């Protein structure tokens, strides 16, 4: 990632911890629905969290950090990126169904079944890397590593794949909380 003014401002814009916190909560909730056998509720989680995201960005971050509108080129690039992200989301859903089919059709010791346990964690890792590219925040690359390690661990121990998401989500929530506290300290309420 280049250290040009646009990247620095993008990093500053996203470096409030809210993205980590809400993404972490979302991932944990999806993991919990998975472990509880309520996978169908998983896709509802982002819909529930999105209004919180908009509210917090407007009423918490912008009053401290100020308002910025990025260039048209960047906005177009981000929209294209989000569209690709939606495709990845559809991929996650398809993988879930594929996973269900493989798990029921093959013995637990089969390599394919073991690898299938890792797939949700791998997809989360891919999403984390994509987020790192979008927001210029390098810590999302570390989150992707956490998801990969958790996925491998869950696969070796034959845990439910939801546990790898819960573990990764908790790491994100912890980091997000710490970054949020740092953000509040660094940017107190702006005085006009």
């Amino acid at each position, binding site marked *: 990632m280049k250290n040009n*003014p646009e990247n620095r401002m993008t990093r500053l814009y996203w470096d409030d911890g809210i993205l980590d916190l809400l993404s972490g909560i979302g991932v944990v909730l999806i993991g919990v629905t998975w472990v509880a056998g309520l996978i169908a509720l998983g896709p509802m989680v982002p819909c529930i969290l999105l209004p919180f995201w908009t509210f917090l960005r407007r009423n918490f971050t912008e009053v401290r950090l*100020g*308002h*910025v*509108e*990025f260039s048209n080129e960047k906005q177009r690039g981000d929209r294209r990126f989000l569209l690709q992200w939606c495709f990845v989301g559809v991929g996650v859903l398809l993988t879930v169904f594929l996973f269900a089919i493989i798990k029921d059709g093959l013995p637990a010791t089969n390599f394919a079944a073991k690898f299938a346990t890792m797939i949700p964690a791998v997809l989360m890792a891919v999403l984390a890397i994509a987020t790192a590219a979008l927001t210029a925040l390098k810590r999302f690359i570390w989150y992707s590593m956490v998801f990969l390690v958790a996925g491998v661990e869950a696969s070796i121990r034959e845990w439910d794949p939801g546990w790898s998401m819960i573990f990764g989500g908790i790491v994100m929530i912890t980091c997000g909380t710490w970054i949020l506290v740092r953000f509040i300290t660094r940017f107190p309420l702006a005085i*006009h």
Partner: protein
Amino acid sequence: MRDVDSCSFYYSFSISHSLTSVPLFADELLQFIHEPARLVVLSHLASIKTADFVFLLNSTELSRGNLSVQMSRMEEKGLVTVLKQFNGNRPQTIYEITRKGRAVLKKYRTEILDLLQDLPL
């Protein structure tokens, strides 16, 4: 003797002072944005569409007074436009770089590259 010493100090100071104030650029606007604070703010504004005063304050890490003065000067020179508005109950000052501002910054980049790129470093 003391007077002579102080005089020589005075002259050497004047000479060195006049040497450092020799403009690097013949173009007045290029010399104007050569000042670090202005250059930082202008390069930030050139990378985005618009930003308010608070965001520029946080992203450039300039002091409130310095940023305010520099923005007024750049507005006078026609390098940025200023829009004052209310966002709910909060007053908001939005800045945007002008076409002229972009052109000057582009010319500055060309000239500074010409100046530095062939140095045997």
